[in-house]
């Protein structure tokens, strides 16, 4: 009986906590969890479970400064691939990332996941922003 009461109170608290979340927080959570699944399906083989990359072949996704500085280009990299030399964590990488057939909303979700995982902490990258960024792809 006692455990039932505790359980009920616990459930109530959880419900309260969720209803207290702001709309932004809810949207962020939605993007983030969907992004995690997209990451596993499309990115993890190369970039690794923890975004660690692979030696000097594939860059890690843990360089927050790089992600911040290139924030508005990230969507284009995912859509059109990335070729040529880049510097991540002070190391030079020059392979090629293939193009992807991810939709803008999928790009937004996976970018939100990456830029808020592996030690990165940025805000949400939403669909609107991805659409804007893609229009300006070089």
């Amino acid at each position, binding site marked *: 009986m006692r455990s039932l009461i505790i359980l009920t109170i616990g459930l109530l608290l959880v419900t309260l906590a969720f209803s207290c979340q702001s709309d932004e927080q809810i949207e962020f959570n939605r993007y983030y969890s969907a992004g995690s699944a997209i990451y596993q399906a499309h990115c993890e*083989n*190369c970039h*690794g479970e923890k975004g660690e990359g*692979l*030696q*000097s*072949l594939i860059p890690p996704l843990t360089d927050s400064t790089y992600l911040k500085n290139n924030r508005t280009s990230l969507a284009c990299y995912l859509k059109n691939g990335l070729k040529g030399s880049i510097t991540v964590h002070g190391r030079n990488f020059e*392979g*090629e990332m293939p193009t992807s057939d991810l939709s803008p909303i999928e790009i937004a979700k996976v970018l939100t996941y990456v830029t808020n995982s592996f030690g990165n902490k940025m805000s949400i990258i939403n669909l609107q922003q991805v659409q804007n960024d893609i229009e300006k792809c070089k």
Partner: protein
Amino acid sequence: MKNLIGALIIIVLYSSCKSNDQAKLPILGEREPVTKTVDGKTVTDTVYSTIPDFKFVNQYADTITGKSLNGKIYVADFFFTTCPSICPVMHRNMLNVYKEFKNDNNFRIISHSIDPKYDTVQVLKKYADKLGISGNTWWLLNGTKEQTYQIAKNYLVSVQEKNPQGEYIHDGYFILVDKQKRLRGTYDGTDPEQVTKLIADIKILKAEPDMTSTK
């Protein structure tokens, strides 16, 4: 009486544990019994299929043949340097095998490129450097497409030509081969747990008594 049964159980348990201590790996592939006459007696022996001789070139432009692997335990896989799908995860896992045995001169890893036109010796060397591998433990091999696809069959691995999307289809198996060039295990190279098992199995194989000379 009761004590006797207890003692019996302990003995049985103990002896069954003991036989489990000596783990053995199976021998895979085709086999056929061969009957021959030795010293006037008829003897039947089982002949296991082995990897036939081959000739490839590694990342240092050295010629690698079956002879180069004589007396060595080795692991083989198939990849190509521009592979966007399973190769990075395979070689991320293979690096663990490399690190474990890189100081063992009787162990090798050979990775056959299935895209020999692009993966020239220079490209393979660059890939090796970027992967952070050096020395002669891990060879990246270039050969003609025919040779590579032919030897894949001996390893029971399937590789195919490019599909309409321009991708190569190949499976991500790591094949364990013993000193007599017999297949002893296949492991999914994309699964870290199976690769941990591969490392354990290599140790079992290394502990096997040497029977390189045939009687």
